[in-house]
């Protein structure tokens, strides 16, 4: 028995020692590997490098890498810091200087600061965003790429009821089931209540709440007929879904637009570089970039570098 006891104790010590050697890094840290890269670089010129932030969805991460990569190619030191969660969190980071530039969206940004903002064109929403933005921020030129909320149906449903615009849904809505993210049901201005009010749409039964991961599948399998998919989501063209035209302008138009902390981004060259890149970003391009990360499983940074090279920015 004594021998067994010693063996067990020795084994336990060995296990604990091995566990201690294992992976470093704070498991509670929520930001991505990009921040490790940033920590390595901050040694040089302490704080001179610009930080381009990104949210925690693919599109934002890729855009951040693209803007940062373009700046680096122009000799302006830039690193990325992605994985910052919601709008409240990253606008706060932009304000306190932990992030200097952030790829945002015109319409949603405008509504964030001014819930009563309305506009009917991309330029209109850009101006609304510009006006609503706090003084310490600056807004650069917007890209043609738009990522909006949408009312989306399958190709079969669109063909069956001859649907091209959201208004076309009015007579057939009682036969269709609507579903999507839980928050879409309750948002007054841009959610189901707005569809009811502005388009007069009354759908069959209960709204089916799905998290984004299961939403596309539910649409494909017919558990829901109508849902809200963001317009650059590769799922739309991969499944041949049809995005109905928002003819009564319920949804804001959200063009990609970098915003920056005025103090850190005053230099002329920064704005010029960002604008040049934005000019080349259209909806198909952004959609394809997202697809390369989500479907082809490539790294956002690699995808960004490849795009910059083939478009003459790097």
């Amino acid at each position, binding site marked *: 028995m004594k021998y067994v006891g010693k063996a067990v104790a020795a084994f336990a010590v060995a296990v604990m020692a091995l566990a201690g050697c294992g992976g470093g890094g704070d498991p509670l840290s929520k930001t991505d590997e990009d921040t490790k890269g940033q920590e390595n670089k901050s040694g040089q010129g302490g704080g001179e490098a610009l930080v381009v932030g990104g949210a925690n969805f693919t599109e934002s991460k890729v855009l951040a890498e693209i803007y940062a990569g373009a700046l680096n190619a122009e000799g302006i030191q830039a690193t990325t810091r992605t994985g910052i969660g919601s709008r409240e969190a990253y606008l706060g980071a932009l304000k306190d200087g932990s992030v200097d530039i952030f790829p945002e969206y015109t319409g949603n940004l405008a509504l964030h600061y001014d819930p009563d903002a309305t506009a009917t064109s991309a330029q209109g929403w850009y101006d609304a965003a510009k006006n609503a933005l706090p003084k310490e921020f600056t807004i650069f030129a917007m890209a043609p790429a738009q990522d909006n909320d949408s009312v989306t149906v399958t190709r079969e449903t669109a063909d069956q009821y001859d649907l091209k615009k959201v208004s076309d849904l009015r007579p057939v809505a009682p036969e269709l089931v609507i579903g999507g993210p*839980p*928050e879409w049901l309750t948002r007054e201005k841009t959610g189901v209540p707005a569809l009811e009010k502005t388009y007069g749409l009354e759908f069959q039964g*209960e709204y089916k*709440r799905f998290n984004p991961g299961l939403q596309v599948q*539910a649409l494909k399998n*017919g*558990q829901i007929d109508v849902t809200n998919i963001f317009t650059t989501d590769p799922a739309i063209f991969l499944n041949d879904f049809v995005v109905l035209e928002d003819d009564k302008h319920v949804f804001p138009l959200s063009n990609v637009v970098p915003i920056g902390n005025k103090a850190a981004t005053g230099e002329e060259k920064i704005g010029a570089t960002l604008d040049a890149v934005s000019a080349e970003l259209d909806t198909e391009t952004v959609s394809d970039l997202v697809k390369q990360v989500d479907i082809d499983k490539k790294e956002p940074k690699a995808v960004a570098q490849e795009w910059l090279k083939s478009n003459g920015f790097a």
Partner: protein
Amino acid sequence: MISRLLAWFGDPANWQGLDGIPNRLLEHIGYSLVALVVALVIAVPVGLWIGHTGRGGVVVAGLANGFRALPTFGLLIAAVIVLSGVFRGKTDLGYVLPTLLVLVILGVPPILAGTYAGVHGVDRAARDAAYGMGMTGRQVLLRVEAPCALPLIMSGVRSAMLQIVSTATFAAYVSLGGLGRFIFDGQASNRFEVMLGGSLLVAALAIVAELALAALQRVIVSPGLIHRR
């Protein structure tokens, strides 16, 4: 936060309709009871058989305990991906079946273990006396071993009920109802008092279920067994 929570509980609109607390509570109880009954139907006969004959215990108990280690959420999503493709169109079966499947898998191991251990651990004297009186194997099982095993069987059932009630919140993740609806919707719209309210309701339901089963146990377990302890 507490004041918002109290306001949420106090708002009469939250007590009516499809999204109201009573409806979600009923849905939640529904999923839990169906899963528990199915788990009982599967686990009790198997447990009685293993405990009585002493055969197959290692294999079956090992398998059942192995199922305990399955990640519930992962299994749920995997089952939904498969079954919602099978049950297409305007039906919830593609979501209800995976949810029940996952809840039953969660509920079987405790009931099986309790039944098997209960029957196996019946006092030898009682068992010998029964055989001595001329009872057949089945009579011994049903008339002597099962009733004597009831305390352990009930404890397995209570443990299963607790797990099922708390995990039935996942039904809401795959678009169904139940108290999980408050948790996921609250999170999505950044209303944490709704999340908290939902969680408290689940905890309260679990406690009530536990008390109900405890009362049931007092009623059906023979007094002779209780005094022996």
